[in-house]
């Protein structure tokens, strides 16, 4: 029993995506606080993991008690502009299937939202969609 290791949770989420997108056809994936210069017309994925609400689950003090740790994963999928959404949604499906209702290493993933088209892509010059999902893990003290 110990406080939740946020980096373990983060690496569980990020590692799952990195492993999938390393498979053919491989797609570059970047995470929070990493520099990246995208190549025009080449697909790439950005994964942003954030921790949010923490709630009491059970009675108790700093031992023998449990908390709920909830977070959100935002995954931006960038593909070439002006050639339709097909390639983007293909990647979006890979991403979505990776987390949809999955329980892995104690992290429960909720059904994803998206891929939703982003009206104003950032950075510009790509067709961008976004997949978002919440996750929950339990902290046993």
């Amino acid at each position: 029993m110990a406080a939740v290791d946020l980096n373990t949770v983060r690496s569980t989420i990020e590692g799952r995506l990195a492993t999938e997108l390393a498979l053919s056809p491989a797609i570059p994936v970047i995470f929070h606080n990493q520099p990246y210069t995208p190549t025009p017309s080449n697909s790439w994925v950005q994964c942003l993991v954030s921790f949010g609400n923490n709630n009491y689950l059970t009675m108790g003090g700093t031992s023998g008690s449990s908390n709920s740790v909830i977070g959100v994963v935002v995954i931006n999928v960038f593909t070439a502009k002006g050639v339709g959404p097909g390639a983007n949604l293909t990647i979006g499906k890979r991403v979505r299937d990776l987390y949809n209702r999955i329980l892995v290493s104690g992290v429960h993933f909720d059904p994803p939202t998206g891929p939703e088209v982003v009206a104003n892509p950032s950075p510009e010059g790509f067709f961008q969609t976004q997949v978002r999902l919440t996750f929950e893990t339990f902290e046993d003290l």
Partner: protein
Amino acid sequence: MAFYRGQQGSVKFDDAGSSAATITSTRSWSMTVEKESLDTTALGATYRANVGGLISGSGTCEVLYTASSADETNAFIEMVNTANDEGAALFELYMDTTGTKKISFDGVITSAEYSATVGEIEVITLNFVTNGAITLDI
């Protein structure tokens, strides 16, 4: 002035009625202690008179399901299904986990609601009544 929050509470239980152990996944508990009132109004009186009668208690406890069988929690959530229950199970409901402020009594678990809802943690709600004396040490 010291105030307390719900997470400072706890529940201990022993189905054998001897040494209560903590129910580790307790989310909440509540208890009502009631005293019957006996009408002793004299014939022709203007005001009604009452005296206290029998005292009893009942309450509810919510437990998160953990599939644990290593502690008293499993006995607690299955107690309702026990045959020949003599009401000897020991309950201790604490207002403060680190202290001794508690309500203790022997009792019977009268119902258990086991539930599972998609997207939510599975919860078991147990209802109980007291058997005999209730000790308020709060």
